[in-house]
């Protein structure tokens, strides 16, 4: 006989179970999809939300941090806004519902809800591992999103903006994107709140870069100050594929962004850059799980954090190098600017290396603003608050400028400047 440990449900867990029962009648999906949903929810119910005893959640004890989950709000509305970069192809998800425009020529597009209904989405409704709480939550509740297929050798001039806006309640989206061999594109995945009402958001982007694809993917999260945001990006990097992944967190009350990357083609390269702008009484976690699984692949990771008020941040960076993944070159750095005594940032870099001919390194720094820099700017007549903002800006701007695309750089610089004006 199996010994069953029963999980006593927390308020948030109970709310999730109730939300599932309440939404059961109108969640999209065929039999296979519902079998997957049921399984994921059941695992969530028996296992509960992860606690600090689960290693990958040690610094983000979701069970205690997630106090409650708002019910789905059927009346909430969320209007779209202008794209981050003018001229982008904007694909809008309003309050969890994808708004499909018919006039996109450059690539194939369909609503994710359709693949739930016809069952083609069922295979993707999985948890990556026993600790994949985001996979479980999103798989249980996901309703819509976009499925994109970028044809081989397509070169998209304008960025694609996946604009996910919400007013309140719950929003669960998914974006499976296939980048054909040799394709080139920039995608901006943007999550935004249009109201201050609390929301519970989960989202998974599931992307594959085929041979030689060169993709820039931006995740720009600017949720409201009472919102929970659970994001995950699953990436498969094929032969000679190049991914520049840029994550910027500038909002939310409780945020976890997971980056799950599997490098499966020789010559593949990952450039990961992250900026966490943290203020107020918030908790933000960026967790990377990167597998260099084949020989001759490279990656660099730089995460820069600015912490104001009583904010807490976490960066976990796991790089695994498989036994035959010789000549892997991976470099990771995490730099934090702590602006107050009450702010916190936890950094956990991890290297698991099973090959013997590799170059891997990691480093972390934590500092305050350099007084010499501050004094120099002030001695030229720049008031202290402005001088501080300039220096914080300089700290994060270094990695924004690497993006090179001028319109994108300017747009992100504006995001950062606006955030700093409000919080610094």
């Amino acid at each position, binding site marked *: 006989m199996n010994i069953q440990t029963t999980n006593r449900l927390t308020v948030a867990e109970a709310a999730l179970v109730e939300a599932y029962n309440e939404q059961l009648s109108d969640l999209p999906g065929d039999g296979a999809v519902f079998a997957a949903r049921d399984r994921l929810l059941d695992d969530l119910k028996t296992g509960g939300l992860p606690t600090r005893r689960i290693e990958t959640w040690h610094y983000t004890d979701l069970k205690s941090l997630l106090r409650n989950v708002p019910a789905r709000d059927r009346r909430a509305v969320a209007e779209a806004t202008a794209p981050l970069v003018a001229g982008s192809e904007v694909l809008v998800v309003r309050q969890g519902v994808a708004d499909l425009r018919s006039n996109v020529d450059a690539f194939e597009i369909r609503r994710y809800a359709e693949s739930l209904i016809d069952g083609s989405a069922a295979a993707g409704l999985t948890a990556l591992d026993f600790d994949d709480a985001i996979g479980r939550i999103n798989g249980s509740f996901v309703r819509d999103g976009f499925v994109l297929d970028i044809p081989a050798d397509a070169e998209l001039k304008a960025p694609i903006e996946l604009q996910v806006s919400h007013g309140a309640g719950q929003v669960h989206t998914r974006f499976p994107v296939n980048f054909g061999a040799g394709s080139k594109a920039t995608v901006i995945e943007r999550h935004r709140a249009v109201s201050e009402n609390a929301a519970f958001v989960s989202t998974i982007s599931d992307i594959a870069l085929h041979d030689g694809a060169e993709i820039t993917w931006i995740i720009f999260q600017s949720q409201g100050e009472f919102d929970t945001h659970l994001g995950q990006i699953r990436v498969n990097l094929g032969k000679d594929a190049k991914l520049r992944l840029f994550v910027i967190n500038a909002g939310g009350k409780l945020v976890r962004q997971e980056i799950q990357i599997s490098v499966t083609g020789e010559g593949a390269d990952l450039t990961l850059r992250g900026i966490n702008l943290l203020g107020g009484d918030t908790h933000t976690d960026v967790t990377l799980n990167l597998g260099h699984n084949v020989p001759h692949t490279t990656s660099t990771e730089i995460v820069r954090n600015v912490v104001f008020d009583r904010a807490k941040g976490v960066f976990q960076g796991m790089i695994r190098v498989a036994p035959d993944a010789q000549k892997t070159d991976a470099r990771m750095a995490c730099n934090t600017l702590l602006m107050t005594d009450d702010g916190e940032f936890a950094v956990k870099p991890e290297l698991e290396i099973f090959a013997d001919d590799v170059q891997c390194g990691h480093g972390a720094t934590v500092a305050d603003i350099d007084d010499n820099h501050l*004094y120099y700017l002030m001695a*030229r007549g720049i008031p202290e608050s402005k001088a501080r903002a300039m*220096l914080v800006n*300089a700290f994060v701007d270094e990695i924004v400028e690497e993006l090179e695309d001028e319109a994108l750089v300017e747009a992100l610089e504006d995001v950062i400047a606006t955030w700093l004006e409000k919080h610094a």
Partner: protein
Amino acid sequence: MLEIRNLHARIAEDGTEIIRGLNLTVKAGEVAAIMGPNGSGKSTLSYVLSGREDYEVTEGDILYNGESILELDAAERAAKGLFLAFQYPVEIPGVATMQFLKVAMNEQRKARGEDELTTPDFMRRVKEAAAKLQINTEMLKRPLNVGFSGGEKKRAEILQMALLEPSLCILDETDSGLDIDALKIVADGVNALRSPDRAVIVITHYQRLLEYIVPDSVHVLYKGQVIKSGGKELALELESNGYADIIDAAA
């Protein structure tokens, strides 16, 4: 323009007193040289005047145009027209030089109730001033002072001074690390700013710079006090005899 009265100042962190009862008056239009051996308090004096927070004034006062500036922070002093050209300008990665110049000029204008400069007007001023100092505008595209040679840093300081048009300029060992050609360019830049309503304090170890920026008065600083003042001939005397005689005479 500047009157320093019985000034005592110490390092905030450990309480070491560096300036010990210093008196000095500099009039509008005057170029005053401050000389002294290592450790006499020259650089500390420049920091205290500029409002660096690492130093505390424990006694005395600094009057600038008749008003005490002790309560003003570095930015407020700069906006009132005080400028310190640093001995060691810091490198600030991530802050673009042009952006820094524009913010500094406009913040000072704002503090004085003037309109901000338009971008074309700003660009024109920078180009003109840079040309006079033989500064390559490519250099100004780099982050502030980052990768500048010693000479370039000093020229960039004088460029800032020319653009900000201060009424009291303090040059802290601007000659250190300069070759003779760069020294002449920098000195010409400073001389161009000489005017009846502007005062300049030149802090230096050596007479050499004073051949190019000829002072109206020379003051010898030792152990945090002015122990002797005189005309430009005092600098020559120091150059040939060293500080020992004057220190002995003052003791």
